Structures are given as structure tokens and as C-alpha cells.
């Protein structure tokens, strides 16, 4: 397998500098990483034009984010790249936890049938970015990709943002109603706005090595506490496509980052793990990590998403996945505002909902980090006691924390939800992301529930159609006689009966057992969508 080629993406002189018509797009996105690219596609699907600028002209170098969770795949399916990612990626769901050479327990992330996507796939970030760039090219009239265009200045007033951009042909200005700052953990926009990025820095250093080798390790996540090949520390092995294995080794707080990333240091460490197998180093990085977030993500016309807004430790795969949750949450709101279907105050709910999500991710990844690298004293006593007991007793296995992997974020406290007075006992309460289920079209074609939701408000009716007309901006979806079929009974088991109002990001806004036109209009209003008065 040839190594990834990192083909440079063509730079084109922007029209502002080549005598063409200056671009006027409602949204300027800064940063063509997974988050910026996903946002451009999501906005394009809502018909909103964007200019996407990046100071570089190549996809991310090194595998970086590799674990994509089921909910992320569902979001990416809505954006149209999940099938490619699934085809290329390594599907896994089983994790094994070892202490020294003994397996102390294993976990199965998705023991449930009836979902289109698996619990996780591993796929290098560069593939994901490549697929998203190619997907952006499907919207030539809506997405204007500008590589080697670097943001050097920024101002905003009540009408929008003016960005100063620099290229090899000179500088130019671009105006937009909103700017999405998707410029990553070291966000320059965050610095330019002088925003505090508060949180915790962990001292522990880790080595990441991507190793190319012919090996038949199964598609599982292996985690070691104190392995014989790396005494006193933790280690993680993950499989990626193209015979690349991610090896993550804890190095302790005093490791010398520069020395540790040299091949003569790395290679003997890897040899101890993989034995006699020949291998090549594909990418090496030494890092320590931080958990930080902005106090708020919306700063008038500048909106932060992904690592520019919040960063977590990598254990739990909550960085890239958390960023995709941001995109999913933000883009329908921004599109509704740009199209004047909602007022600008709807953005407050992005802050509210995604700060809740970011805090959940920070909390989980901080807990994992402490468990993996406990301070001397009581923290170490309890960590080791937990591992001791886990070898013998089931309860203690639940306490072992080698990373709590990203799960869908529930928004059950969101101000956009309508109170649940349905009496329905299923877990699909307002704020929940919709669970998937296999369904078949009225003509009998097999499909998935989530593919029929999202991108607009949907009124999902189970068993009986909604009587009467729906308000503008809501599309009906009937599962039951005369509509789609619940082929495996999964819809009934997961949702029960009644009617669900589902947001464009596939989260439930409201549910009822009995149709009530006034309640539906009120729920839409609550979810931020303007309702014209009945006459």
C-alpha cells in the first residue's frame, strides 16, 4: 500500500484580486479541517453559500483524529460522506483492557441490532478531509473553497464581519454576515478577539506513533495498564486502514518531547510491542494535553466551532466527534437565521446546547486522564486498588476508565424543547438524538429512519398520520399503514406511538400521543422557528 500522497490542492487567485466580481457570501468559514469542511457542506445542503478559506493547501498531515463515533457517522451520512468513510474505515466495537499481560475485561460498544452505522470506525483524518473536500465540490455554486488564503485581520459591526485575507497575489477584503472560526486548537481568531481559553493543563506526556506493518491484529481497541513492554505506564493500540496501527504510549510528566520523537527512541519502544515484525514509522507525535473551552462560543457575528471553541484530551475520541456535534447543532440554526426563518437570538441556543456538550466531553476526558495518570498518593492508591479488584470482581471493572468513548449528547435541558407531557415511556424524550431503525418505503425499498430525518423539521407520526395540514417548514413522515413500514419492529420499540417533532439535526423537539395543532405550532416557535399567525 503506497503511503498517502498529500496532493497539494490548487490555489486559484480569488476574484477580488483577478478583476472578477467580489464575492458576497452570507457565511465565511475560516479553517478547512473536518469541522470547517463539514460546516460548509451542511450549510450548502440548506442552500446557504459560504466562502471557506484556509492558510494551507493540503489535508491534515498525520492521522490525527482517527476514531469516528456512530453519532458522527450519522451526521456525516446526512452530509453525504459516511458511506465512503465506512467503506474505507476499520469498523470496530470491541475494546480489551489488559493489566500487564492479563486481560481484565472487555467491552462491546454496540451490542444492539437495528442501526445503520457501527459504534465506531477508525479512519485517518486526512481521508475524512479529502472526502469532505470532494463533497464540497458537489456544490460549486454554494461553496467557494479558497486554499492558501490566510486570515490576517478581522473586524465586525452589527451587520457582519469584514475579513482581511492574504494570498500570494496580495491582500483583499471579504464581507460576510457571519464568520465561523473553525481554525483549530491554536485559533488565531480566538487570539485576535482576545478571548480567554480557560481550563486545565495535564503534565503527562504521550507518544503517538503510526506504524505501517503487515499484521493480522483484530479490529479492536487494546488498552494496557502497566504492560510488560512499557512498565509503569499505559499503552493503546488501534487499527487504521492501509495496515497502519496507532500506538499511543504514556511517557510520564518528565519526558523530553524532542528526544522522544526521534526514531532512535521510538523504534525500540515499538519493537518491544510488535516483536519481530518488520514495520515503518508513518507519523510520530509527542504531546501533552489540555482541557479548555471558551466561556461562550458566539461572539456577535463570530462563531467558534470545534477545537477553536473547546479542546479535550484524546482519550475518549471526544475532540473531532465533539466538533461534528457543533456543526450539526449550529448549521441549521445559522441557515434559518440567514434565510430569515428564525431570529438571530436562536444562536443563543447553540451556545447553551454545545457548551453543555463541551462540558460533558471535558468532564469525561479529564476523568479518564486522571485515571490513566494518577497523582502520587491517594489518587494512585485508589487507581491501583480499582485495577486489583477489577481482576476479581465485576463491579470494579465498571470503575476502570481507559477512556469513555464519545456517545451522543442529550439536550434534555435545552430551552428549545417543549415539555414532555406525552406519557410515552420510550427513552426518546425531547432533546434526545433520534435513534436509528431499519424501515422500508411504501414501495418496499429498504432504508433507514435517520435517512428520512434531518435537514429540515420533520413531524414523525407513528401508526396514525397527523390529521390536517402541517405548518409551513414541517414535512410529514408516516410510519404505519399507508406510509413507511417498521420492518423489524425497531421503530415501535424505540419510539412507541404518537407524533414526534424532529429538528433538522435529528434531535427531538417535542412529542405527543394525540395530535394537537396548537401544540405543534407552539413547539416550532419554541424551537426557534417563526410562525405566522393563523388568519
Amino acid at each position, binding site marked *: 500500500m503506497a503511503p498517502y500522497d498529500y496532493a497539494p490542492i490548487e490555489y486559484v487567485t480569488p476574484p477580488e484580486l483577478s478583476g472578477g466580481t467580489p464575492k458576497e457570501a452570507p457565511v465565511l468559514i475560516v479553517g478547512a479541517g473536518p469541522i470547517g469542511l463539514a460546516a460548509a457542506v451542511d450549510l450548502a445542503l440548506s442552500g446557504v453559500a459560504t466562502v471557506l478559506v484556509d492558510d494551507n493547501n493540503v489535508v491534515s498531515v498525520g492521522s490525527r483524529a482517527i476514531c469516528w463515533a456512530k453519532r458522527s457517522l450519522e451526521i456525516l451520512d446526512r452530509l453525504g460522506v459516511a458511506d465512503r468513510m465506512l467503506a474505507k474505515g476499520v469498523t470496530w466495537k470491541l475494546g480489551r483492557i489488559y493489566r500487564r499481560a492479563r486481560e481484565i475485561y472487555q467491552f462491546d460498544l454496540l451490542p444492539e441490532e437495528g442501526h445503520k452505522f457501527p459504534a465506531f470506525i477508525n479512519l485517518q483524518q486526512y481521508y475524512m478531509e479529502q472526502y469532505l473536500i470532494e463533497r464540497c465540490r458537489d456544490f460549486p455554486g454554494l461553496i467557494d473553497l479558497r486554499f492558501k488564503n490566510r486570515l490576517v485581520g478581522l473586524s465586525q459591526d452589527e451587520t457582519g464581519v469584514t475579513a482581511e485575507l492574504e494570498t500570494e497575489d496580495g491582500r483583499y477584503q471579504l464581507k460576510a454576515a457571519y464568520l465561523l472560526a473553525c481554525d483549530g486548537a491554536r485559533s488565531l481568531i480566538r487570539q485576535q478577539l482576545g478571548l480567554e481559553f480557560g481550563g486545565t493543563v495535564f503534565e503527562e506526556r504521550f507518544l503517538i506513533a503510526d506504524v505501517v506493518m503487515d499484521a493480522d491484529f483484530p479490529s479492536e481497541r487494546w488498552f494496557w495498564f502497566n504492560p510488560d513492554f512499557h512498565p509503569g505506564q499505559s499503552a493503546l493500540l488501534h487499527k487504521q486502514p492501509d495496515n497502519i496501527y496507532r500506538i499511543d504510549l504514556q511517557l510520564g510528566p518528565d519526558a523530553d518531547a524532542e528526544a522522544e520523537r526521534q526514531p532512535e527512541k521510538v523504534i525500540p519502544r515499538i519493537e518491544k510491542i510488535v516483536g519481530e515484525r518488520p514495520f515503518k514509522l508513518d507519523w510520530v507525535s509527542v504531546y501533552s494535553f489540555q482541557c479548555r473551552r471558551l466561556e461562550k462560543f458566539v461572539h456577535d457575528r463570530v462563531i467558534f466551532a470545534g477545537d477553536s471553541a473547546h479542546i479535550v484530551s484524546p482519550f475518549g475520541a471526544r475532540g473531532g466527534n465533539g466538533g461534528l456535534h457543533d456543526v450539526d447543532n449550529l448549521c441549521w440554526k445559522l441557515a434559518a437565521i440567514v434565510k430569515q426563518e428564525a431570529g438571530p437570538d436562536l444562536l443563543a441556543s447553540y451556545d447553551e446546547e454545545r457548551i453543555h456538550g463541551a462540558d460533558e466531553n471535558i468532564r469525561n476526558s479529564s476523568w479518564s486522564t486522571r485515571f490513566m495518570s494518577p497523582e502520587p498518593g*491517594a489518587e494512585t*492508591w*485508589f487507581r*491501583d*486498588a*480499582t485495577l*486489583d*479488584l477489577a481482576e476479581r*470482581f465485576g*463491579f*470494579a471493572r465498571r*470503575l476502570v476508565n481507559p477512556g469513555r468513548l464519545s456517545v451522543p449528547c442529550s439536550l434534555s435541558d435545552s430551552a428549545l424543547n417543549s415539555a414532555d407531557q406525552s406519557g410515552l415511556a420510550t427513552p426518546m424524550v425531547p432533546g434526545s438524538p433520534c435513534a436509528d431503525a431499519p424501515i422500508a418505503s411504501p414501495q418496499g425499498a429498504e432504508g433507514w429512519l435517520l435517512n428520512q430525518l434531518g435537514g429540515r423539521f420533520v413531524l414523525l407520526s407513528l401508526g396514525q398520520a397527523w390529521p390536517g395540514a402541517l405548518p409551513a417548514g414541517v414535512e410529514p413522515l408516516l410510519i404505519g399503514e399507508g406510509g413507511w413500514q417498521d420492518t423489524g419492529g425497531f421503530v415501535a420499540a424505540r419510539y412507541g406511538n404518537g407524533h414526534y417533532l424532529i429538528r433538522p439535526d435529528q434531535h427531538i423537539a417535542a412529542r405527543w400521543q394525540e395530535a394537537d395543532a396548537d401544540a405543534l405550532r407552539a413547539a416550532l416557535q419554541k424551537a426557534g422557528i417563526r410562525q405566522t399567525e393563523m388568519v
Partner: protein
Amino acid sequence: MALNTEFNFSEQPDQLYNDLIALHEGLDEAQSAALNARLILLLMNQIGDAQTIRAAFAAARQPS
């Protein structure tokens, strides 16, 4: 469930208290600390109720 601060052993106190002391016999400080940590985790799980456990945390944090 509130934290029960009345005497609650199922038998007279002295034997069980001395069993606890004897449990640590022959252990150095690090081994004792490890034993205590295992014991606390086992007892926490036995109690189960988070409110009760947190009430015990708070009571234990006050030295006197």
C-alpha cells in the same frame, strides 16, 4: 438514604474493630494504604446509594 451515624454493626463492636486492626498486621504503610483503598471501594459498592456515600465522604473529611 441518610448516613446512619448510630451504631449499626450486627454484633458487639470490639471483635469487628479488632478484626479491622488485625487485617493490617504485617503490612507496611504502602500495603496498608492499598488495602484500605480496596476496602473502601468494596464498601462503597456495597452501600451503593450515592447520597449516603457522599454524606460519608463529607463526615470523614472533618477530622474531629
